[in-house]
């Protein structure tokens, strides 16, 4: 199990050091600093073995978080825990920065004492932690409150406390997708997938039971075959369904029920949380197509022409469009002409950055650039990094549709109809690259 946890600043100075196991000594703190933080070269692995001690590290901005062990621990668990720890800290004091960590070091020690015991991760749900790690002492609590805390921390529904009340029961549901693409210069899709998340904000009273439905192909095909009432069958099969390659759920979702019936039912945490993640690869709507043309004119000049085409309903608007065209390291000057938006050569980033605020569907735009090169005797060829793109579109590129989100709360007197529900779809670019 985890033997110790250290947090360093970018210089390698220790901000937090908590040792859980006797086999980890103070020298481990220094070993990591010397061998990893101060090492000159690029990090070659997130797991480092130094003198039979294993170090797992993650970086958040310029802060290093390292978990140390001498045993054969569950490596995936250690990383998941480090991420979770970052989430918990962020939930308490915002951005993970040197200043914030120093300002809250007592709190961090208190948290570390609670969420890791003898190196075994314990309940680390912020909702639960915030009920009793407040840095205000726990004097004011009544006996009932205390036992409520402990039963929540250890209980089956560790993510929600009893007795939540809202005047207005409201639900916000965001379908956030990032569409990833790797395309060859000739326009062939080498790989494409959508990784999506369903993020919810729920402000619901009591202990509501929720059921979430979407146009999952398996569910809809089943419903179609199952001979449910004709109306249902028609209305559902009429809509397009999507094939979901795989999905993972928040711990509040009953996995065994999903496995057997493919229905998504859960008691939601209060506030904001991520209900599920999913991945699709079939029938993806690629919102943009990038057509590159690079021509080398002699040894000191490059001509680049890039066309982008939007590929969605003309009534919809894409936003925050940015095309990044890499330039060789020996670029001495660039002239750009673009039809729409603004384009600039950024020498520090070795790229031409072309920005367009808005663009409707079924349109196209073009940029052309002349790149002057300094003559070099460097034998190494320019690697020609791919052209990458960023954008945001108001639909789900996977084609996912929310069919329903039902709320049941039998003890309190509100019904599914009384809950105000909001649904929003946002598609963003993930790694959206076209080779040139």
């Amino acid at each position, binding site marked *: 199990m985890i033997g110790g946890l250290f947090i360093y600043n970018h210089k390698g100075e220790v901000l937090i050091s908590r040792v859980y196991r006797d086999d980890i000594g103070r020298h481990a703190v220094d070993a990591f600093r010397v061998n990893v933080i101060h090492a000159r070269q690029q990090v070659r692995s997130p797991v480092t073995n130094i003198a039979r001690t294993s170090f797992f590290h993650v970086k958040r901005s310029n802060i290093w978080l390292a978990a140390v062990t001498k045993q054969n621990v569950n490596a995936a*668990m250690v*990383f998941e825990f480090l991420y979770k720890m970052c989430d918990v800290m962020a939930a308490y004091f915002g951005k993970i920065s040197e200043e914030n960590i120093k300002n809250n070091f007592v709190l961090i020690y208190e948290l570390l004492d609670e969420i890791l015991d003898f190196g075994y991760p314990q309940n680390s749900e912020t909702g639960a932690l915030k009920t009793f790690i407040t840095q205000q002492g726990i004097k004011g609590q009544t006996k009932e409150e205390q036992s409520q805390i*402990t039963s929540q921390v250890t209980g089956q529904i560790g993510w929600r406390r009893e007795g939540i009340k809202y005047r207005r029961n409201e639900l916000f549901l965001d379908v956030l997708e990032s569409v990833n693409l790797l395309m060859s210069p000739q326009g062939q899709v080498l790989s494409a997938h959508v990784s999506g998340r369903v993020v919810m904000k729920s402000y619901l009273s009591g202990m509501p039971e929720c059921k979430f439905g979407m146009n999952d192909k398996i569910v809809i095909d089943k419903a179609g075959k199952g001979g449910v009432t004709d109306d249902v069958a028609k209305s559902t099969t009429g809509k397009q369904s999507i094939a979901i390659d795989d999905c993972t759920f928040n711990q509040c979702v009953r996995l065994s029920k999903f496995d057997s019936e493919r229905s998504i039912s859960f008691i939601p945490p209060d506030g904001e949380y991520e209900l599920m993640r999913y991945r699709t690869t079939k029938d993806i709507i690629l919102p943009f197509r990038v057509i590159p043309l690079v021509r080398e004119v002699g040894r000191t000049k490059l001509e680049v022409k890039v066309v982008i085409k939007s590929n969605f309903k003309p009534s919809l608007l894409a936003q925050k469009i940015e095309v990044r065209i890499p330039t060789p390291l020996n670029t001495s000057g660039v002239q750009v002409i673009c039809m729409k938006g603004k384009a600039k050569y950024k020498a520090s980033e070795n790229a031409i950055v072309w920005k367009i605020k808005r663009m409707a569907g079924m349109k196209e735009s073009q940029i052309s650039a002349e790149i002057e090169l300094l003559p070099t005797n460097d034998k190494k060829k320019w690697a020609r990094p791919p052209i990458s793109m960023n954008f945001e579109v108001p639909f789900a590129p996977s084609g996912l549709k929310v069919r329903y989100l039902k709320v049941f709360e039998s003890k309190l007197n509100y019904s599914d109809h009384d809950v105000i529900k909001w649904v929003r779809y946002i598609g963003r670019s993930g790694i959206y690259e076209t080779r040139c």
Partner: protein
Amino acid sequence: MEWANQLCENRQFGSKMTDSKYFTTTKKGEIFELKAELNSDKKEKKKEAVKKVIASMTVGKDVSALFPDVVNCMQTDNLELKKLVYLYLMNYAKSQPDMAIMAVNTFVKDCEDPNPLIRALAVRTMGCIRVDKITEYLCEPLRKCLKDEDPYVRKTAAVCVAKLHDINAQLVEDQGFLDTLKDLISDSNPMVVANAVAALSEIAESHPNSNLLDLNPQSINKLLTALNECTEWGQIFILDCLANYAPRDDRESQSICERVTPRLSHANSAVVLSAVKVLMKFMEMLPKDLDYYGTLLKKLAPPLVTLLSAEPELQYVALRNINLIVQKRPEILKHEMKVFFVKYNDPIYVKLEKLDIMIRLASQANIAQVLAELKEYATEVDVDFVRKAVRAIGRCAIKVEQSAERCVSTLLDLIQTKVNYVVQEAIVVIKDIFRKYPNKYESVIATLCENLDSLDEPEARAAMIWIVGEYAERIDNADELLESFLEGFHDESTQVQLQLLTAIVKLFLKKPTETQELVQQVLSLATQDSDNPDLRDRGYIYWRLLSTDPVAAKEVVLAEKPLISEETDLIEPTLLEELICHIGTLASVYHKPPSAFVEGSRGVMHKRLPARTGSGESTESPDVGTIAGGSGTETAPSIIPSQGDLLGDLLNLDLAPPTTTGPPPPTSGMQMGGMDLLGGGLDSLMGDESEPLGGDIGGSAAMGAGFGAVPAVMPASLNAPMGGGLGDLFDLGGGVGMPLGAYIPPKTVWLPAMKAKGLEISGTFARRAGVIQMELTLTNKAMSVMTDFAIQFNRNSFGLAPAGPLQVLSPLSPNQTIEVSLPLSTVGPVMKMEPLNNLQVAVKNNIDVFYFSCQYPISMLFVEDGKMERQVFLATWKDIPNENESQFQIKDCHLNSDAASNKLQASNIFTIAKRTVEGQDMLYMSIKLSNGIWVLAELRVQTGNPNYTDLEISVKCRAPEVSQCVFQCCEAVLKN
């Protein structure tokens, strides 16, 4: 309290007055000031002071001097302050054990607090204070907390048992905590169950054979129920524990799999990987024709692919595991090639792993896509990545025959880029392609030769030289090319030198007329001017071969080479099985068994996949479950049957060359006796010899000198054409200067390949020129290259220890055999073994550590100056009590006394006198062991009666234990 509130407010409003001020460096006299503040009457001031202390502690300053002052602050109702003091205590209690006792009362009191959070805090902290006296006081509160009404306290107490076990295992057992912990597995609260499982699993690891976890269908059912209800972390503990269970039959296996599969949709990657581990393991037991088996295979792919959209660090862990899964069950991911395509912004460690998996998944169906990708990668920036990509292209050519042509042309394109490391890498892989498809692509040789000058890495140079030698007949200027390498022969690495030697010999055999001079030159460079024994040996062999029988030489040197296999870099099957059992853990990330990186006995246990059972056998093995219950697995290092404790000792030793250090053995009375016997020996006999080992050491020095001189003499004898045939040649290896005829037992297999992941070791012992040598034959029967050999002995009766490191200079490639001889010294640590001449050996390589034991003939220990003065012999014989005399018979030995005497003398058994009485020759002999013990013997040989061929021998020694061994030795010597 007010202060705390204020602190919180400050945080909320983002004020500057925050904790960070404690980190500012304080001036001198800091400790003194802190002391004053800690003893202040004002609560706020106290708390601030403690915070400063903790801040100093964090940055590594020693603030242990403040111990009493900090502990004084412990009695408080302010929980924040209390937690800080506890933090301090955990850090420094060990350095101030007596003072730590001061804290006990508070702990005990807190364990009774009405607030469950405080009870839990007390028991949690107390377990972290590793002071013996405190642990005694911990027992009662812990017992109560394990039965506390509040689940939060129980789950904390469960972990505390593991903590206490780490400090004092015996105490935990004596106090019966293990049983209480077992009861908690049936607790109503899932988190308590999860923590109890975690604690028990950890404790069970240090008791591999105990039946602690007692996994049976009932308890498994409980675990599976808790699995649905506990936190993500708890699910991991439970799944990792489940993976150790051995289901009784395929039906049980299937039902567990069915209940575990829903976990594949968990958002936590560790839950997913642990579930994959359980499924991969239990799948072994399912019949392949079962429908469910196919369903399960299909279900495994999507979650594995999903892991690749996690954060990069987790992707890395996932990829390392996928690498194993793909080797074990390629069918799972065979259609998922595209997800392993490298993204431009992937961290380098993700890129390299993806590339590795791409090669493994490459097949005829997807080769075009893969090749296009690889070509793309070969133009990237990172040198390691580019090299690997180029190498991958070569691997594809070897793996998918249809693609070979395209691969070769891709490689030629890459060579045209003239990027140095790309060219070198390409040449290395083209060499392999030539070997796989002989006489197909030799047209490219001309292009390769153009790049000869740019090669500066040994591997590329060696590959190029190999190509030139192999195809010498097609390369017009092959002799010039090779000659150009010869100029800097001594600056080349061994790899290149060896290759050059072979290549020139090949050239000579192909074009003998023009290259005679060249071959002379290289042979003399290799034999006369080189210090490298491998090179010299190979040089001599060629020399002798060429000078005796050129036809035979041709047959040997130009023999058809075995084809190279399609798959390379595969993990050896037994290791792979073990690693599959460790999916998700560090072992799976390192691709090494836990024993390779975990210290001590914990986790060294080897795990195995379960065997497939037929569905009909379900009733047959009720006890499999119980056997496996304790460990889930058998312990592999049972090769050395007895002396379990010694084994532990051996395992703990670091495998570095000779160890005379190390803690003294925990000696029991019996062992002490043994040491006395062997160490002290016969004081009276040793007389004035103050340094009993002097002779031995001298011998070894002389031997070293002898060896040094040998090479100078050798070439002369070799120059004589038709010298003495190959037989002589092989004797040259090590046998120079040794007294001829010393008995060397034939080699026997000490470590079969099955038990050592493909490494087979056979060997024997010899004594040459006063030096004991362990002669080993290492054979690599695995599929991967073995490197980094090292050897280590356990303590043994005569203190045998390696006198130098195990000299395996070049990596041992598959199916290769090498002979190594390891000089031994007798100055190692001593411990009596049973039998006396037993030797426990650990051999390490890059794959694992292996253990075996062997018995050496005691004659190895007979020293050269073992001839006793007649007078002394007589006196000693009388002096040794008669009960120390043992009689033995050697049957069927047709030797007369002189022949026997000569034979024995060769093994340092010296005849001092001979008497003939009544048709019987009596030989009186003396032997001296390396540790100074004298053994006297009387051998009776019948001379008169030819039918009576038995010899009788009486052995007398102050240490009668050795008599049996000595006799065995004499018998062996006389009969051979």
